[in-house]
């Protein structure tokens, strides 16, 4: 249902401006959400979908203000429930391109159940998780992705919660499109977002997003030139896992486990490295477990399985099959039932 209608000549030529509302954007200056918004506005004109067929749904939180700023149909719902609402939108009208943009508190804490089950069902929705590892709108409490030991207003002695791993959750649910990107990496975000929207089924995109008020620099290890080349690895389908400032490092399997090697040393050549295959769910599992500093954190499209039918498509398939079997509808016969009797 999310096929791009490139042949549709009636489609107006859009620019990002067409997807910009008259509402003032109220995020804090320097917030990573600006980058995500810009990427989305830039991506939408190229999707081959009519403007009126986009629906943005969000929950609650800073990121959840997103729909107000995108000039399409949109709903700012309640805390945690964006995906449940979006499921209803998509199932009511599968022609719509449905996107959910929300934060880590919304999608992984209060709304965690819906995140799991939407991905499990493979509802054709694009999810952008703006993960800043903090509760911004409620003024800086730790979130389910905050690191253990985090000092916040509710954890003055340090958080004793272990953080959740969003990619591992996505893999566990059988999510059919899993990606990760950095908020300031506009080019990759654009590519990933477009692929995610074009994907049939749930697309889950985790964005490392900087909250420069309550959790500034949380992702600096992954975003700053000094460390990013060692702390992250961009995966590309069909290409070996290579990273590092001079692209001298790679990842190979050693006795079934991933291992970092320096290409040319230790008898390791490029040919020994793991080649990224986005259709391979075993690799997706491995990526989910790779975290810095033990490993570079994989960025890009980690997994894409186009073969699993989307929930909404199966729903309509059953409706169609039932209609085809039944022939002419007879409401009176239904209401009367099979066991009626006549009083004369």
């Amino acid at each position, binding site marked *: 249902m999310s096929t791009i209608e490139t042949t549709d000549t009636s489609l107006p030529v859009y620019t990002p401006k067409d997807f910009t509302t008259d509402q003032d954007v109220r995020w804090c200056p320097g917030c990573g959400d600006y980058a995500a918004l810009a990427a989305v506005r830039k991506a939408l004109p190229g999707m081959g979908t009519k403007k009126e067929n986009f629906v943005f749904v969000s929950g609650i939180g800073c990121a959840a203000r997103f729909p107000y700023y995108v000039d399409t149909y949109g709903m700012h719902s309640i805390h945690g429930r964006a995906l449940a609402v979006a499921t*209803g*939108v998509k199932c009511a009208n599968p022609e719509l391109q449905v996107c959910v943009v929300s934060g880590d508190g919304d999608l992984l804490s209060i709304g965690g159940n819906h995140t799991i089950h939407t991905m499990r069902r493979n509802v054709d929705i694009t999810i952008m998780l703006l993960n800043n590892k903090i509760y911004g709108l409620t003024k800086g409490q730790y979130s389910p992705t905050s690191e253990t030991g985090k000092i916040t207003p509710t954890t003055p002695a340090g958080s004793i919660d272990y953080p959740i791993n969003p990619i591992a959750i996505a893999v566990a649910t059988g999510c059919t499109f899993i990606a990760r990107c950095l908020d300031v990496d506009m080019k990759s975000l654009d590519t990933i977002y477009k692929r995610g929207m074009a994907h049939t089924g749930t697309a889950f995109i985790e964005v490392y997003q900087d909250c420069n008020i309550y959790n500034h620099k949380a992702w600096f290890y992954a975003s700053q030139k000094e460390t990013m080349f060692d702390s992250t690895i961009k995966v590309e389908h069909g290409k070996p896992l290579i990273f590092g400032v001079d692209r001298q490092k790679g990842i190979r399997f050693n006795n079934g486990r991933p291992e970092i090697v320096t290409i040319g040393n230790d008898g390791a050549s490029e040919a020994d490295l793991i080649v990224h295959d986005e259709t391979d769910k075993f690799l997706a599992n491995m990526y989910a477990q790779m975290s810095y500093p033990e490993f570079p954190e994989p960025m890009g499209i980690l997994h894409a399985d186009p073969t699993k039918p989307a929930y909404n498509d199966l729903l309509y398939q059953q409706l169609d099959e039932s209609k085809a079997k039944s022939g002419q509808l007879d409401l009176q016969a239904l209401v009367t039932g099979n066991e009626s009797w006549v009083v004369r």
Partner: protein
Amino acid sequence: MPTDQTTNTPSTTLDSVVIRFCGDSGDGMQLTGGQFTDTSALFGNDFATFPDFPAEIRAPKGTTFGVSGFQVHFSSESIYTPGDRVNAMVAMNPAGLKVNLVDVEPGGIVIVNEDEFTKGNLAKCGYLDGYNPLEDEEIANKYNLVKVPMSRLTKESLADSGMGAKDINRCRNMFALGIVYWLYERPIEQTKEYLVKKFAEKKGLPEIAKINIQALQAGYYFGETAEVFPSRYRVPPAKQEPGTYRQISGNEATVLGLVTASQKASKSILYASYPITPASSVMHGLSHLKRFNIKTIQSEDEIAAICTAIGASFAGDIGITGTSGPGLALKGEAMGLALMLELPLIIINVQRAGPATGLPTKTEQADLLQAMYGRHCESPVIVLAPRSPSDCFTMAIEAVRLAIKYMTPVIYLSDGYIANGAEPWKVPDVSSIPEIHITHPTEADVGEDGFMPYARDPETLSRPWAIPGTPGLEHRIGSLEKDAESGNVSYDPDNHDMMVRLRAEKIERVAQSIPLLEVDGDPTGDVLVLGWGGTYGSITTAIQQIRANGHKVSSAHLQYLNPFPSNTEEVLRSFKKIVIPEINLGQLSMLIRSKYLIETIGINIVKGQPFKVGTLVEQITEVVES
């Protein structure tokens, strides 16, 4: 086929009879009672049923908490309840007898499967060592106790069938049904056809159908030949209006009402729900109607269910969710969202006894205040309550009609009693049911200032239902307070005050679109009995009896709880005393008192059971005579 000519037993004609079948939850009592009901319906009796089963699917065998019962009241007159007192009972085991004997009238027929009254079984249901109720003289004197070795007779009648003991044992309920068919002069043909359809045709087990039919016949012949009953009983057909009739339960009627509304509105339904007793059968029913473009989603939880329904309504379907009281509590915040968004939404609440898990299979009317106020802040919604199983059809259509007309959530308060209970229903001509008109705005409706998603219809105050996919009407709605017209986020204090009042006023105006409250009896007088929802049958029967006793009393029954019909105050002020029976501690009383400053006298019994007519007669009469 056995016929009346083969017996010499005399026959007594009765107006109506209440029979209760009871036994272990695995004894097939619901099926047995259902078959007796079907047969009586086809015979032309009026009837009302009361299935009463435990929450446990298969409680430990032989225990009192595993007892399942099915009561059916059938009559040659119009009846509204399954009856207070049982005239005849079939108890398949000691536990069934122990739990149910108290409801049998003195002199009533009690047929027991005496083979099950073993030492072990008697102990299992807590009878003292050495005591057997079948040997209790007091019981023998008080009731017409008929001991039948049903297990043994069933076994003997099927001895040549070649079937295993387990399958044969399962036919005992049909043997019992056969006895009861003979006793009440019912034909067995209907049940034979049913058994063939159920076992032979659907399950491919013709041999099972065969032995069940044999057991049924054996039971019938036993009645005829054993001469244990001094008389047979005949309940002639009721005088009913000509027409096509069917049997219907409340949840079935809800399903049919929703589908009919969908067809009349030319709109697809999306029903999202999480399984919960006693609402689940609404989802079961709708799930089989995909051909009518009914989409059902079994959500991951109650909150997801309502939010998915809200999303569906936003996108242009009729979004519906169904639940019972505990689920309604979970949906509270999302109901607030729906009324803030001003989208049509129907919330089916089949009430059950609580709070918390409470008595999940038992009935109650205690969610009225939750329906009215169980949300944060000022959040009025429409509240409706069907009054009988068949009324669920009409009120389900009403729920959809009003939700769409006023762009608002509607809570539909059914209850476990009418949801599971069944009655005969004169099938309506669906072509006579009015269409439900829906207008979705298009680009042509956009004014100079652009599309205003919160511009209101001057009459109903409802806003336009613009759906995604419509060019030129792109807009955002949300849970934040919004500017009265543009729908943009607004923190303006005066705007909020105005919006709070507007949302309340919109629901008040619904009174213009609903019928007036009708009074049964004199329009003025000393005593008015005011009821609501599923107690209609008990109250109506009680009123008839009180009048037959020579007293004057009027009654009125509310199906619209918010807003009340516009003449409600006028009706109430026409009487000196207002009696309000409800299966809660006085929730409608509280609403009436606070809204109209009118004193009320409550009759409040909260036992997880429908009102006993006798109790109502007694308590209302007390007020009438005082």
